[in-house]
């Protein structure tokens, strides 16, 4: 009798423990992500043969001075397209395709893998770095969303190859950005594709009054880089270049990080530097400071093996060594198999990005997913993840409830506030089908209309040239005892990037104090701002200004 009772107690405890150990349910707001690509007027399909199994990105940026982000979308074998944002603040999303005339052969807009916005020449118009199979494009932006091919003028040979990743930074003393370009398989190498990853490249601007990318520095060995990101991992003020590599094709490869010091030859972090071997199907890097430590954490997408890396408190010292620990499991962010739909084969994850989708003041993680093509060992129906940050430091899956869990082959993604209502929206590029455009309507409210979510701020930094958009700056937003950090970056994800308003959720805070560490390392004084405003911080001015949409 006593034994049976004991067993029942043990079983009860075990059951309770299992319940406690199960996936956490989101406790805060779940955003309603309403898919409205067709109604918004966006039709773009990323497709094509093997070369376009990967990639599938785009760029979101303000190309007409309206403050609303427009989008440039890769099409693979299909031509890339530009859609100008015609939405009204707080309203449904509306885009209008603008035919691209880049002053060159229109075929150059085919075979596009992805794109990143960056104002290379500092003229106030966003330019585009366009990743291609073949040669890459530098498209100089002009007024009214016009673009002109500028490879020749800027002495850029296109760095031919199969380009699958890109990142950029402004090194000290340089007028123009340093460009890092990551390649995939060298299809012409003997034995291709196995063990034939093409080496990567670094282009530092040459002296002069206009961009000059005539000198290439190899980043070798290359291990089929699907994502790159300049990151100040140790708060030294000198960003390093993280590279996430696809183990499918390399031999003896691993994840990489390059030491990129001004005027010096790039050098890989090695075992002697503390760098640890990690081999994954690396597809996308995302950076975010989820614990408020000031040191970034990294989400690395892969196939059934996503990583969330945090500096190892025991072995990294005070960020003296780049030793990372995978905390994905302990915080519920493994996202390794589909969470709905019944397919329990491993997931294939592509784009990842930290952002606050419910304005709780906590970072969430969006992960786009989709089978490579027809890989039988991996989930065929592979819903994208919306992992909502929780107050206990964990993440809770809300993709299904939010509405992003459709049957799509997701690739790159653009996370931006497309209708400037303070809530982040998602444009997901899909392989073989139209893009998905999810408008964030607000918090799920049973069967009722969505509710407004937490407070927010959206920030734009301005400083004198060079680097007028302050790429590399860190923004610290303090509310109460908490400080949230955002970094202005060009790179990462899956061949997708955005520029413009930097969104920070504020939860219940009505006010925030913002400090900026400008790219040269200088900290600003504190800017006091009220919630639910678009804030422009101009380094030359003592006070922040507010900005208001014109429509």
């Amino acid at each position: 009798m006593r034994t049976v009772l004991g067993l029942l107690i043990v079983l009860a405890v075990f059951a309770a423990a299992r319940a406690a150990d199960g996936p956490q349910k989101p406790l805060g707001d779940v955003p309603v992500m309403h898919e409205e690509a067709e109604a918004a007027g966006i039709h773009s399909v990323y497709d094509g043969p093997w070369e376009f199994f990967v990639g599938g990105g785009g760029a979101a940026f303000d190309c007409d001075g309206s403050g609303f982000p427009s989008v440039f979308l890769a099409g693979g074998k299909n031509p890339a397209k530009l859609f100008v944002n015609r939405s009204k603040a707080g309203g449904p999303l509306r885009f209008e395709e603008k035919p691209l005339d880049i002053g060159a052969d229109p075929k150059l807009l085919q075979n596009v893998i992805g794109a990143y916005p960056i104002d290379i020449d500092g003229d106030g118009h966003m330019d585009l770095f366009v990743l291609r199979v073949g040669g890459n494009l530098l498209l100089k932006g002009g007024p009214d969303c016009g673009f002109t091919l500028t490879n020749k003028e800027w002495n850029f040979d296109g760095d031919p190859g199969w380009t699958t990743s890109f990142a950029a930074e402004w090194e000290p003393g340089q007028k123009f950005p340093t460009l890092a370009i990551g390649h995939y398989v060298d299809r012409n190498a003997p034995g291709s594709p196995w063990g034939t990853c093409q080496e990567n490249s670094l282009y530092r601007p040459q002296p002069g009054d206009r961009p000059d990318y005539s000198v290439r520095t190899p980043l070798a060995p290359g291990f089929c880089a699907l994502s790159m990101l300049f990151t100040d991992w140790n708060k030294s003020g000198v960003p390093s270049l993280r590279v996430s590599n696809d183990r499918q094709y390399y031999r003896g490869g691993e994840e990489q990080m390059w030491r990129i010091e001004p005027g010096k030859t790039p050098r890989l972090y090695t075992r002697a530097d503390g760098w640890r071997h990690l081999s994954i199907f690396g597809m996308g890097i995302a950076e975010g400071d989820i614990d408020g430590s000031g040191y970034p954490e990294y989400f690395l997408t892969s196939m059934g093996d996503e990583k969330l890396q945090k500096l190892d408190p025991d072995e990294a010292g005070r960020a003296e060594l780049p030793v990372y620990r995978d905390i994905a499991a302990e915080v519920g962010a493994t996202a390794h198999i589909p969470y709905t739909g019944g397919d329990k084969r491993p997931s294939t994850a592509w784009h990842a990005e930290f952002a606050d989708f419910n304005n709780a003041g906590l970072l969430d993680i969006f992960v786009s997913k989709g089978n490579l093509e027809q890989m039988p060992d991996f989930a065929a129906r592979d819903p994208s993840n919306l992992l909502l940050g929780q107050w206990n430091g964990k993440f809770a899956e809300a993709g299904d409830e939010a509405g992003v869990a459709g049957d799509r082959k997701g690739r790159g993604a653009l996370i931006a506030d497309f209708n400037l209502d303070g809530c982040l929206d998602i444009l997901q590029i899909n392989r073989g089908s139209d893009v998905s455009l999810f408008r964030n309507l607000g918090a799920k409210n049973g069967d009722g209309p969505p509710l407004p979510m937490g407070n927010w701020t959206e920030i734009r930094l301005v400083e004198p040239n060079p680097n007028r958009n302050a790429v590399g700056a860190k923004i610290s937003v303090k509310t109460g005892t908490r400080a949230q950090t955002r970094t202005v970056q060009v790179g990462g994800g899956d061949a997708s990037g955005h520029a413009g308003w930097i969104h920070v959720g504020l939860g219940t805070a009505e006010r925030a104090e913002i400090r900026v560490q400008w790219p040269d390392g200088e900290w600003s004084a504190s800017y006091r701002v009220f919630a639910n405003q678009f804030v422009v911080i101009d380094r030359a001015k003592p006070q922040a200004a507010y900005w208001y949409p014109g429509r």
Partner: protein
Amino acid sequence: MVRDKEKPTIRRLTGDVGDMKRGLGVSIALSVVAGVLVAGAASGGSWDERVFGSHVDFDAVASAGPAALTALIERGRELFKAKFTTADGAGRPKATQAIIPTKRKSGINPPFSRTSGPDSNSCFGCHNDPIEGGSGDDIANVFVSEGFESAQFDNIDPSFSSERHTIALMGAGLVELLAREMTADLQAIRAEAVAHARVTGEPCRADLVTKGIRFGWIEAHPDGMVDLDSVDGVDADLIVRPFSRKGVFTSLRQFTINALNVHHGMEAVERFGVRWTGSHDFAESGVPDAITPGDVSALVAFQAALPPPTVKADLPADWRAAASEGAKQFQAIGCVSCHVETLPLKSLVFTDPAPYDMAGTLRASEAKALIRIDLSTFPFARTLQKNDKGEWLIPLYSDLKRHLVVDETVNALGNELQAQRFVERDVFLTPRLWGVGSTAPYGHNGAFRMLDEVIVAHGGDARFSRDAYLALDPEQRDSIVAFLRSLVIEAP
């Protein structure tokens, strides 16, 4: 949202109201409020110490319309006077007084702390002079700290906190309505300037003037940028915040939620609940979801419906004459440049939730329906004058604007060392002088026993009036005191 424990409170509530009011309308109200106060399982005896035998259901009240108002206000009065108990969730062992939910770094709060709070068992504990909802004596002063880092500060050094005298809440609904209309005006001016600049391609300067009060100016640029450097006396988001000494709270609802937490350790679900903290009991008081949105609404309704102060009716002849002269002098020496006699109000319809609150205070867009309190139906409305536009003239003697009240030589009011919510230490909202005759001591921390003393302490923006006051002969100065002392709070 609604959590209830017992029936006796419902009976007690309805019985109290029944004692006050009679008639069919009241019967309807009682039946409605009985419908929104749902009994729970736990039951105490009729001597139960707890305040919350039941909670108000916001949605039910809002949908019930005017029929529920009388009882809602009465429930608010009960809560205003209630002494919250541990069983109600009073105290915040693991949370600070901060308005953003903030955990203590370590240790636990004692049940009461005169400095960081909880410092009062009830709203009435401070707001009781001369009647409920009024001001308080110096003993009821509170110590304001942002409370993010220093939850356990244990002294009243101004380095750590700012001492504040209790503000009377009479006429608070009218005050909030004025602020709402002013906010709407200012934000409309901004929107118009932004639109004009975009259309013309030229910068557009716009004066921020509402109800005759000037809040500086802005300059909108064609690209949508707005320069805020010359905004004066109001926050940069152009929301007029009429509550607190510094003018930093937007609405009675926001003020109520803040005060419940700071002073009583009673935490409202809409700020401290699971939606924003991941916990039903953020303060670890042992009572989950202690204050529902409906409870907050009851307190808001009670405060919003408080009649405004009045002019003392039974003045002796000498006082009446002196007060009449004093009113003229008050105007002549420029006191009215800030202590504006009346502000015009277009509508007396008070809605809850308020239109300009942000997340953490229930927003109008979060409610299925609003609670609507038409203050024009209250007896006090008959005492209000109207202007030729049909607007109600609210005699609050304030411009609802912040001013610098300190200068190099007159700085007795500049005795704080901390800014509060972006408002510098020597800048304060123009106090409303209606009822000032009933709310001694004076000044933001009640440091002045006599009206003459606080008038003489005015510096900064008020220096010219203060100097003019000193230039008057003693009888004229005394007449101003007579005038101010005639502005009183009296039981209706």
